[in-house]
């Protein structure tokens, strides 16, 4: 069984290598090869999963040591894998959703002449993401972490002929660099503290390191998570990342890669458990991002950017939960998985709509599409119901547990974070309903494209609709299945630990569930009033200051521009000034001094033997005098 773990990564890696090196001859078949290898990897995952289910909870983890990577004295960095329940969950999510999105891309990218390369990148992403979740040490995790960053960069900029796509890819890469820096610092700190990178010893000995060390490591890990998972303050890249092809947005920027930060925090739970301050920071980041993303989502007319805001917000939920510690880890992951289903489904639905609407992304130019794209409408609708937490669908269970866990934290913190989570649920319902209404209901607001033709919306091909249907089924049923007999909690508990939270007085479970549903209903109702009862204007109204700010992503780029770009420019300008005036002055001055000295000293070299002899004589005299002097002192 252990050898299968390596094959999980090897299959898509092989695909990437073949597709990227294979050249034109694979143009016609390459996408099926890539898709097949993704499904093969999924099959390996299922085999391993079945095998794992046959063992009892404490003995499910598999370990596989491939080779010693960096053996230096006592220090060992190995290429070794660890497949426990947490990794398994991710493996199934990544390969499952990944395979479906491969299939979807076969249809979606049909007319793209660089399709082979696209599938090569997708396979590369799968391999890197799988490596990230099955690595048994932080160094190897870092390899996967960088690998997904690379794949994300390549895929965001896949349509590199568009300057906006190229810029977005660069932006994602650079912002991620900040987070990656955090991860590398965290790894270095771990090395100096524990002398190893391996999960086992690091996490087992975490308590011995002392709180300050753990807080430092935790904050650096949080920085890493912020970068990869687009959390405030490193959130600015995610919206632009929607420049990539829609399947990429679905797989990488919704379902899997952006959740790597949550994985990192949950995996490093032992470190955060020992560092309450770092946990608080995690919760604050999650809560802020939760509202931030939701507010941005309300203002976007671009369907993908709206969904991106939503992704940010939903990951905020997960990060918030992960910050709660053992009460929340399980629910963070549970929400992560259900979110993987419904958000991937929503993105694929959005892609399907764009596919039928001549790649139009502005929702103000949609409207009334439900009749023309029934499958898309139904699957998107189910995903919509799941994300707003409609009772008994996936999102309902995971979000409900999450809100409970936030309140169960108790004290002021519990109240604050719980209320934020509830508020977020209402806003989620609002912006998702808005999206639903603007896209599928109301009047047709279709606009002619550059050629003057009105779009002819039509249902997408089977390769696209089948994945959507499967994901919709997951959006509906996953939460219920997970929740049945607290199955998911029992599944993950041996790895992440679980603590049943106690709600403070006067709260109880039905009250919170009721509030959540009420918040959802309020959000839906408000959206209905604004976008369902009245016609949607084809040109966005001016709106108030908040709308204006939200449309500009709550000024994230303006803040970055003022603080980082301008600040950076000022810094470089002053450094350049310093360099020119001071450093160059010293350097040129030194050079001039040396040159002048050289020119003057040359004159002693006059070519006359007599003066050379004199200087030798003088030198000998000095030598003798110095020797005698040294004896004298």
């Amino acid at each position: 069984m252990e050898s299968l773990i390596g094959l999980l990564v090897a299959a898509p890696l092989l695909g990437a290598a073949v597709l990227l090196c294979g050249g034109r001859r694979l143009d016609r078949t390459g996408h099926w090869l890539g898709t097949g290898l993704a499904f093969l990897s999924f099959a390996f995952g299922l085999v391993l999963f079945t095998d794992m289910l046959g063992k009892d909870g404490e003995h499910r983890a598999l370990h596989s040591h491939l080779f010693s990577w960096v053996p230096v004295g006592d220090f060992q960095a190995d290429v070794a894998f660890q497949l426990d329940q947490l990794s398994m969950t991710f493996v199934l999510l990544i390969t499952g959703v990944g395979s479906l999105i491969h299939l979807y891309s076969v249809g979606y990218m049909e007319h793209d002449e660089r399709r082979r390369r696209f599938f090569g990148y997708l396979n590369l992403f799968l391999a890197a993401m799988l490596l990230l979740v099955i690595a048994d040490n932080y160094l190897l995790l870092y390899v996967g972490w960088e690998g997904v960053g690379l794949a994300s960069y390549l895929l965001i900029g896949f349509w590199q002929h568009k300057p906006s796509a190229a810029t977005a890819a660069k932006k994602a890469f650079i912002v991620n660099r900040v987070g990656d820096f955090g991860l590398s610092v965290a790894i270095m700190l771990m090395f100096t503290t524990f002398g190893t990178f391996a999960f086992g010893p690091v996490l087992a000995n975490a308590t011995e390191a002392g709180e300050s060390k753990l807080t430092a490591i935790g904050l650096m890990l949080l920085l890493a998570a912020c970068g990869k998972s687009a959390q405030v303050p490193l959130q600015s890249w995610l919206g632009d990342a929607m420049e990539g092809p829609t399947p990429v947005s679905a797989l990488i920027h919704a379902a899997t890669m952006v959740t790597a930060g949550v994985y990192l925090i949950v995996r490093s739970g032992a470190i955060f458990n020992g560092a309450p301050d770092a946990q608080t920071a995690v919760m604050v980041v999650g809560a802020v991002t939760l509202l931030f993303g939701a507010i941005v989502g309300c203002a976007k007319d671009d369907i993908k950017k709206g969904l991106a805001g939503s992704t940010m917000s939903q990951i905020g939920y997960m990060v918030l939960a992960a910050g709660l510690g053992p009460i929340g880890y399980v629910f963070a992951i549970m929400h992560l998985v259900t979110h993987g289903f419904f958000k991937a489904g929503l993105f694929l639905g959005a892609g399907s709509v764009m596919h039928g609407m001549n790649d139009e992304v502005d929702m103000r130019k949609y409207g009334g599409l439900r009749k023309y794209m029934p499958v898309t409408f139904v699957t998107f609708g189910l995903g919509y119901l799941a994300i707003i937490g409609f009772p008994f669908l996936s999102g309902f269970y995971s979000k409900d547990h999450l809100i409970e866990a936030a309140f169960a934290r108790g004290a002021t913190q519990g109240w604050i974070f719980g209320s934020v989570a509830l508020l977020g649920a209402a806003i989620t319902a609002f912006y998702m309903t808005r999206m639903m209404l603007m896209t599928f209901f109301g009047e047709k607001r279709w606009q002619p494209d550059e050629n003057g033709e009105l779009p002819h919306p039509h249902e997408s091909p089977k390769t696209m609709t089948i994945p959507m249907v499967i994901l919709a089924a997951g959006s509906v049923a996953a939460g219920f299945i997970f929740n049945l007999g607290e199955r998911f909690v029992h599944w993950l508990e041996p790895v992440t630990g679980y603590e049943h939270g106690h709600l403070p007085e006067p709260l109880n479970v039905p009250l919170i569930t009721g509030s959540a549903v009420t918040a959802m209903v309020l959000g839906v109702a408000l959206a209905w009033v604004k976008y369902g009862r009245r016609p949607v204007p084809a040109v966005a109204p001016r709106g108030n200051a908040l709308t204006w700010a939200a449309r500009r992503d709550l000024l994230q780029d303006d803040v970055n521009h003022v603080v980082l770009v301008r600040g950076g420019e000022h810094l470089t300008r002053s450094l350049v000034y310093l360099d020119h005036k001071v450093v160059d002055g010293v350097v040129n001055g030194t050079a001039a001094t040396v040159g002048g000295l050289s020119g003057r000293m040359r004159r002693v070299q006059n070519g006359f033997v007599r003066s050379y002899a004199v200087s030798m004589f003088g030198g000998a005299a000095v030598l003798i005098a110095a020797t005698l002097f040294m004896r004298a002192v």
Partner: protein
Amino acid sequence: MSTMNTVHSLWTMAAEPAGKIDSPHIEYAQLSPTLIVLGAAIIGVLAEAFVPRKSRYAVQIGIALLGFAAAFAAVIALAAGGHAKEEAQIAAMGAIAVDGPALFLQGTILLVALVAVFTFAERRLDPQEHGKHVDSFAAQGSAVPGGPAEQAAVKAGFTTTEVFPLLAFAVGGMLIFPAANDLLTLFIALEVFSLPLYVLCALARRKRLMSQEAAVKYFLLGAFSSAFFLFGVALLYGYAGTVSYAGIAEVVEGTRQASDPALAQTMGNDALLLIGGAMLLMGLLFKVGAVPFHQWTPDVYQGAPTPVTGFMAAATKVAAFGALLRLLYVVLPGLRWDWRPVMWGVAIATMVIGAILAVTQTDVKRLLAYSSVAHAGFILAGVTAATPDGISSVLFYLAAYSFVTLGAFAVVTLVRDAGGEATHLSKWAGLGRRSPLVAAVFAVFLLAFAGIPLTSGFAGKFAVFKAAAEGGATPLVVIGVISSAIAAFFYVRVIVLMFFSEPKPEGPSVVIPSVLTSTAIAVGVAVTLVLGLAPQYFLDLAGDAGVFVR
């Protein structure tokens, strides 16, 4: 003790009846490298007398190559036989040491000599004269430059094949120099290798007057320094009553008392020791080209035929530093606190002044001459470490440096215009565009001189600076690094000139050499890169060789 007395009697009691002199006991096997080379030199002289003129060139090359190769094989055999370590001994009645440093340096000198034979023998660089290929040496050394005798000699196609026996004699002296174990042997070795070099310097085919001027300067100043050296020997004899290294060391350390009643007045007089020691050092510092005894280097390096310059710059340094090391580590270790600060001063002056003066040079050969001065300073930094690491780092540096130097001067012979070698730097502008390979090779050598990683220069510089720092000479290392930075400027300037300047229309051309010079350059590049990429084996070798026998 008995050895001391025997040597003593050999040199000082010749007046006694001849019957009392025992024939000296010579360990021929242990001395074989030197004997083979000197034998080859003598055979070369005989060949010059008896072999017909037209086949002399080939015969001389054969003798020289065979002699050096056989001597090198003998060195290897001795080292393999343990003479570098546990079997190290003093041979020839106390006159010659056969130990690790001696064998290492002899091996280096012989390899340098082998490569030098190739550059000496090169005959494809100058245009043919009267239908004959000519080398870098004057047609007839004794003919007045430009006079009718010279013209006749050129017309007759004479070549000075005597350079090969001269080279062999010089190498013979250099082999003895670092191995000499008493001061008189040291002096004789000094003269044995210096005199052929003076002659070789005078033999340039082009610019003969300049060449002869260089030789005369070298000779006069060399004689001047020899006088100091010899006076120093006399003073030390007066101090210790012996010229043997071990004997002097014992007197310095106080383990041996005066033994010669005739010298009772002076023995043990520290003034004699200090002044004599300083004068001795001066003689050696002259040979390595340390400041303030360096002024001959640029003039001589520039005037001498370039193959000779290359050989001299490489091999003389190896031999002279070997002798300096032995003198400081075997004879004067008891005076460490006296000589170290002085040597510090010399090292600092040499590094700084060598580097600074090189900055404004406009002639490649003079540039390399000043660079060799600066390098002498870096090596001195390792010498002053006064630790076993100091010895081994210096040995390594010498081996690395000598091949870079040899290769660099070999490249200089290739760049020519109508007047012969185009050594003015302005003529090298844009060489990289015209002859990328030659320019790249020269760039490798320059980078090695500058001590850039992945070249032997870095490994060597690192080794000596490390040894110096561990020996407590941190200020020396700081100044050394600053000097290296200054030096890097003029090395890189040449690279910039070669690769990033427009070539001059009437600039020089690069001559395609025969296999001889190509081999020499290739060996230089190979050693530079191998010692740079994988220095550890050779560092270990030098480390193993780093113990002087006493």
